[in-house]
C-alpha cells in the first residue's frame, strides 16, 4: 500500500513537472530574455483565421439545375448596374458582399430575355418556390442557399443603402431579373423580380 501510494505520488509529480518544464526549460525565451539571446528570433506573423477569405462569386446553379456564369460588374455613369448583355451571363455587383463575407447582400442580376437570344436562364426565377436550393461558387469556395422570398418591385430608383445590395444586415443572396408587365412605351419591363435566399451553412472550400 505504502509503496503504491509513493509510486502514485511520484507519478503525479512526474506528470505535473512537464507543465512547469517548458517555462523553466526554454532558456532562450523565458529564461534569460536578453536581447543577445532573442535577437535571432523572427517575430511570428499572425495568421488570419476564424473565417474563409471571401472571394468574388463566379457561378450559380439555379433551382431548375441550370448553371449560370457570373461576371464581376460595376455601375455605369448613369447609375445602372452593368449587367452583361448576354442572357446566359449574370453580373455580380463588386461593391456588395462576396462569397464568404459574414454579413450583407450578394447582388447577382441577369437579363430575363433579349430580342436576339430569347429567354435567359434567369427567367426561371419567376417561378421559384420557398426553400428551393441555390448553389454559388467562387474560384475556391462554394455555399448553399435556400430561397426565402420572391417579390416584385417597380423598376424604379434604388436607394443608396437598398436592401438589394447593402452590406448591412444578415447574410443573403439576392438574385434579380426583370418581370412584367412589359410596356414598350414606358421603357419596357415595369418590375424587377427579386429572389432573396439565405445561407444553408457557411462558405466552404471547394473540393
Amino acid at each position, binding site marked *: 500500500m505504502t509503496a503504491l501510494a509513493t509510486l502514485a505520488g511520484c507519478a503525479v509529480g512526474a506528470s505535473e513537472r512537464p507543465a512547469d518544464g517548458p517555462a523553466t526549460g526554454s532558456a532562450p525565451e523565458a529564461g534569460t530574455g536578453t536581447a543577445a539571446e*532573442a535577437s535571432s528570433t523572427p517575430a511570428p506573423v499572425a495568421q488570419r483565421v476564424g473565417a474563409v477569405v471571401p472571394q468574388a462569386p463566379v457561378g450559380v446553379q439555379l433551382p431548375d439545375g441550370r448553371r449560370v456564369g457570373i461576371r464581376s460588374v460595376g455601375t455605369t455613369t448613369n447609375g445602372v448596374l452593368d449587367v452583361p448583355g448576354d442572357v446566359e451571363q449574370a453580373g455580380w455587383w463588386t461593391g456588395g458582399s462576396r462569397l464568404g463575407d459574414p454579413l450583407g447582400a450578394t447582388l447577382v442580376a441577369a437579363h430575363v430575355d433579349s430580342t436576339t437570344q430569347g429567354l435567359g436562364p434567369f427567367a426561371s426565377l419567376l417561378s421559384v418556390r420557398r426553400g428551393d436550393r441555390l448553389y454559388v461558387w467562387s474560384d475556391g469556395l462554394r455555399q448553399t442557399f435556400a430561397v426565402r422570398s420572391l417579390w416584385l418591385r417597380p423598376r424604379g*430608383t434604388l436607394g443608396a443603402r437598398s436592401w438589394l445590395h447593402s452590406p448591412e444586415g444578415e447574410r443573403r443572396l439576392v438574385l434579380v431579373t426583370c418581370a412584367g408587365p412589359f410596356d414598350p412605351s414606358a421603357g419596357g*419591363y415595369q418590375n424587377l423580380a427579386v429572389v432573396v435566399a439565405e445561407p444553408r451553412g457557411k462558405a466552404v472550400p471547394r473540393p
Partner: protein
Amino acid sequence: MRTRTFRAATAAAALAVAGGVATVSFASDASPAARPQAAQAQAAVGSVAIVQAVPKATMSVSVDGEQVQGGVAEGKVVGPLDLAPGSHEVTVSDGSGEWTSTVDVQAGESSDVVVHRPAEVGGTPTISVFPTPSEPIGPGKARVVLAHTATTAPADVVVDGQTVFTNIANGEFAEADVAAGPHEVSLLPAGVKGSPILGPLDVDLAAGTLTAVYAVGNPQDGSMNVIVRTSGATASGDEAPTEIDTGSAGLVDGVRVWTFSGR
C-alpha cells in the same frame, strides 16, 4: 525577471466577471506630419506601427538598437514608422526584461507589430506581426481586423448577434468587411454560448476605414481591454447602382409571378 501573478490561474470560474463594460482606448493613426512623407515614399518603404498591448506595463521601444520612444503605456502606439524594406530588430523593454524580435518589412506594405502576452497566465511578452489587409474596400463598407492578444483560450467573435468568426487563438486574427456605421461586437470563449470574455462593445466604423481591434488582458482577473486603431484604407470607388435593367424583349410579359416572403 518580472513578478507574475498566479492568483488568477486558480480562480477557475471567474468568467462571469468578464461581462462588465471594458474600457476602450482609441489610438488614432499617425501624427499629421508623418503622413505626407509616407505617401511620397510609399513604394520605397514599409509602414510599421508598434502597439504596446502588455497590460499594466510601460515599455521603451527600440528599432535596430536605437530607442524610438520610451514610457510607452498599455494601449499606446508608436509610429507608424517608415522603415526600409528588409529585416529590422524591434526591441521592447519594461526595465526588468527585454524582448527582441526580427520583423521583415516589405516595400509599400504596412503592418502592426504588437507586443502582447501569450495565452498562458504569466507568460513572457511576445512580439507578433499583424499584416494590414490592403485590398480595396467597397463603397459604404469598413474593414475590421480582430486580433487575439489576450491571456485567454481561443475565442469566437459575435458581431450584431451573429457569430462571424470562430476559434481565434492568441496571436491570430480574423478580418471582415462590414457595413459602415454602428456595430456591437463581443468576444466569447470558442464554441460556448454565454458570458462574453469581452463586450459587448459598441463600435462605430466610418466608411473606407480599417479598424484593428486588439483584445488584451485576462478575463479571469477582470483586466480585459481593447486597443482600437483606425486608419484609412483604399476604397474601390464603385458607386452603388440606383437602377437595374434586365430585359428587353417582353417575353415574360404575361408570366404571372406568385410572390411570397418571410422566413
